[in-house]
């Protein structure tokens, strides 16, 4: 039988194994459902599992480096990076326990038709950069830029790692669900907040997923809250006033209007969570 499942030993080998008749295999939770989406299922799986560096998480003063194959389960267990709570929460609450042991951060970013990814807004809020490798070699770019070009990026490129610079602020993730758990969010929000010495917001990064087909930063809201004192912030109203930034998608799960309706609530939840963390750390 021809080789339908390959384990290249290095990223370079993996890049050269890719092509139109191959598909990258990370955790499998997206690829293995291709038949349910009526997609081509005859592609050779190029597994990245035997490339050790892709499984690593390293934390130092410069930042946190996360290999593309790190699972949600592993991310949820990170406890020593206080500003990364949004990512830890997103990883620990998405899908269900068994899926979290399989699904990877690389897969979450690269599944371009998956609007409701939880890790992506968290990483956006944390100002993450991604490293990619292709025939041209390795390159680094912001996740925001990556997402804007995601649908047209070459199929022979591999996202190998994520880099999160260290910060002094705190972050939180909120998911809008129809049930209590176990499903893809109809909208999700990650917030990173950094205070200045006067108790005002020095920097804020707010990212929204599932509302549009690709997660994105909510720059208008970030600008609106920047410099505002925490105490007097009416974040829900501010968010409400800026929802025109989005062109929400209609879906089987929820109509477009519903995604926007709950967005201010989710922003407020994430803000309250992050502000609580800041208070406790002060």
């Amino acid at each position, binding site marked *: *039988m021809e*080789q*339908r*499942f390959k*384990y290249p030993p290095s990223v370079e080998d993996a890049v050269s194994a890719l092509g139109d008749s191959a598909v990258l*295999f990370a955790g*499998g*939770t997206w690829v*293995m*459902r291709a038949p*349910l989406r009526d997609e081509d*299922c005859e592609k050779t*799986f190029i*597994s990245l*599992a035997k490339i050790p560096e892709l499984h690593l998480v390293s934390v130092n003063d410069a930042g946190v480096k996360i290999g593309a194959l790190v699972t949600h389960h592993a991310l949820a267990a990170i406890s020593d990076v206080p500003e990364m709570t949004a990512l830890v929460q997103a990883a620990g609450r998405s*899908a*269900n*326990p*068994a*899926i979290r*042991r*399989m699904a990877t951060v690389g897969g979450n970013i690269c599944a371009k038709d998956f609007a409701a990814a939880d890790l992506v807004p968290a990483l956006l809020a944390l100002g993450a950069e991604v490293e990619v490798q292709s025939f041209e070699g390795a390159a680094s770019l912001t996740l925001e830029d990556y997402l804007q070009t995601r649908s047209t990026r070459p199929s022979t490129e591999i996202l190998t790692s994520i880099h999160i610079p260290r910060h002094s602020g705190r972050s939180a993730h909120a998911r809008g669900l129809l049930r209590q*758990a*176990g499903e893809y969010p109809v909208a999700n929000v990650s917030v990173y907040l950094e205070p200045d010495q006067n108790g005002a917001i020095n920097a804020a990064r707010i990212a929204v997923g599932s509302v549009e087909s690709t997660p994105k930063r909510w720059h208008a809201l970030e600008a609106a809250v920047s410099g505002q004192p925490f105490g007097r912030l009416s974040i829900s109203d501010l968010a409400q006033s800026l929802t025109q930034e989005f062109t929400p998608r209609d879906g089987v799960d929820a109509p477009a209007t519903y995604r926007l309706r709950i967005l201010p609530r989710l922003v407020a939840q994430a803000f309250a969570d992050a502000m609580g963390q800041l208070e406790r750390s002060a």
Partner: protein
Amino acid sequence: MGVDFTLNGKPRSFAGDPRTSLLHALRDDFRLTGAKDVCGEGFCGACIIYVDGEPKTSCLLPVGALQGTEITTIEGIGNVDTLNPVQQAFIDFDVVQCGMCFPGMVMTLTHYLKDNPRPSRAEVKAALTGNICRCTGYERIIDAVMSLHNSASGEVRT
């Protein structure tokens, strides 16, 4: 050229298409039908097995990814004559109905209780987020699990 792994303690090899899901290999090739093919997309948990001791949904695992691993299915939990404490509690509380979800329930909860021997009700429910039951309405399953707190040793064997 096949994929070699340990299945319920015995060395086994799979020579078919390595992209085949473990669930289908178990059911069709190894005729281990305890793991059930219910949703096929990782939501229901009826096909949960252990890979190297970790519960995973076998419907989304291609056999090719399992070279050298140790796989345990519901058939590998105890034997015909012995039940583990989770299984025993389910009998004691008369919670089984159609039964299709229970192999997965047993796998999830047995693993969970090993690391979390004294969970709250809410924690057990969170642990069951990926195990759907259409018959029982869950609460009596939770009752059975909560009863294990009070067992003599407090330990849950696998």
